[in-house]
């Protein structure tokens, strides 16, 4: 059984079909890349999966549960996590508190009020920060981080609650080539813990870390397959030459 199964999803904005009958299957433990030109519907698809908006038609199954119309907080509790295209770290909180906030989301109201897990989660917070090379920035405000560091912080936050599936929308946007390389290194080991759907413009980056790719164009799936299959696909080549 696939971890995520998107079936015939459409999303209509007035006259525009941002998504036009999308099918997408993601197996547990795989990295799945989503590529396609600007405006092809990649972000719209991720948002529909995360619950930021509801699809016009179609259905989304996650871990054997129909989540098509579920509110975002329930999807999160079922093991879905994400980083949107626009970074949304909480800039007025410390880097440490950003991660703590993400980590403690499974606690009940009473436990939060009594700060029951504050001590217990300390080690986990620092571990998450170390993993993304932010440990020595723990006490800084998230707003003081560079753009690249904020992206890392967001990934660290998204991974903190141990999701089954992580959705990343352009995690290397605005990064230097060196930061990009490091991001790839940081992402590779998470395969042991969760599956990934990632949107990226940088084809080399995405080819390196993904098992499978899906190409979108004008709200439709142009092709799905292994990296090698997609690379050999003439239609995909055409799209990418058209774009340049």
């Amino acid at each position, binding site marked *: 059984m696939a971890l995520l199964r998107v079936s015939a999803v459409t999303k209509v904005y007035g006259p525009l079909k941002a998504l036009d009958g999308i099918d997408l299957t993601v197996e547990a433990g795989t990295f799945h890349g989503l590529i396609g030109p600007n405006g092809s519907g990649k972000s719209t698809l991720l948002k529909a999966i*995360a*619950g*930021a908006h509801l699809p016009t038609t179609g259905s989304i199954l996650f871990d054997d549960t129909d989540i098509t119309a579920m*509110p*975002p*907080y*329930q999807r*999160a*509790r079922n093991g879905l*996590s*994400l980083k949107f295209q626009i970074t*949304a770290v*909480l*800039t*007025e*909180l*410390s880097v*440490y*508190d950003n991660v*703590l*906030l*993400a980590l*403690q*989301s*499974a*606690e009940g*109201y009473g*436990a*939060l*009020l*009594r*700060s*029951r*897990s*504050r*001590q217990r*989660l*300390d080690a986990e*917070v620092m571990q998450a920060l170390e993993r993304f090379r932010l440990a020595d920035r*723990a*006490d800084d*405000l998230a707003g003081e981080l560079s753009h690249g560091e904020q992206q890392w912080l967001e990934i660290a*936050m998204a991974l903190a*609650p141990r999701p089954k599936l992580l959705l990343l929308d352009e995690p290397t946007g605005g990064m230097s080539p060196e930061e990009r390389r490091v991001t790839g290194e940081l992402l590779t080991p998470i395969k042991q813990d969760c599956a990934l759907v990632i949107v990226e413009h940088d084809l080399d980056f995405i080819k390196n870390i993904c098992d499978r790719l899906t190409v979108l164009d004008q709200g439709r799936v142009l092709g799905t397959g292994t990296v090698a299959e997609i690379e050999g696909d003439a239609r995909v080549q055409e799209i990418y030459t058209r774009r340049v």
Partner: protein
Amino acid sequence: MLPVIELAVFAALVVTPFLLADRTDLITLVTNVIILSLLALSFDLCWGFSGIMSFGQALFFGVAGYVVALVGRDLEFSQLWATLPLAMLVGGLLAAGLAVFLLLGKRTPSSIFVAFGTLTGAYAAERLVAGWQYVGAGNGLSAIRLMAFGDYEFVEGVEFYAVALAALALVYAASRYLVRSQMGLVLAGMRQNEERLAFFGYRVQVFKALVFSFAGMIAGLSGALYSYHQGFTGPSNLGPGLSTTAVIYCLFGGSGTLIGPVIGTAAIEVLSYVLADTDAIRQFWPVILGVVLLVVVAFQPSGLLGLLVSSRERIGSYGARKAVR
């Protein structure tokens, strides 16, 4: 810096009755400040800490004030150990009811919706009470039965002052516990980016409803003390006018800190007291207040306290390992 200010304010409130023992009028003034700062604090928990734009805090204040007045009149009962908790219960339940309607609906409410909803609630309540004979209609209820403990009855003065200060200290300690807990971290995150928190799995509106209800309890306590202290309550005690005054107290002193509303209430009430002696100014006082508020909102959105406390300290940190800086 913040703990120093908190300590200084409470120390000042503790020594006040000793310094002013023979000035009954001033004791009454400061008692009023303490009681009203509870109302301002309740607004601050909503707006400053949770991003709920409540323009109806006086609704909970006023209704609780009427309830203790009626319990005194009709049941001839005014023991504070029962009526003050009752007032908190009334304020809390009323706020919870309003929260279900305004916050927990199917669609995520906008802050404008919440602002108008609370404002309308307060407005409707004021009109309703003003036309209702049983509760004294436009005249309100006067000669309210004195608050009592056993055989002891509290009139204006140092003893009443002590009760009010104890109430403020308890509420302050409870609020401080809340906003510095891990739940306080959720609130801090929520007021920065509500949507993002939902994607972590938080039911943002439930957190808001909980804080709103807690704030309703505090407003209720404040309203009961106010009725007892004044010996009178009227329709304007539950309307938009007083609700807005609470907003002003809070914004003036500094929202998002617990001590800000106390300082704001004191500053404004003491200023009005001083200026009320001069007839020429009293007439224009509302205008002056309005202008002052505009200036604060435009140029010093973090209020008086913002002059002393950095935004970093105001927002605070929540981890086990306290930040070193």
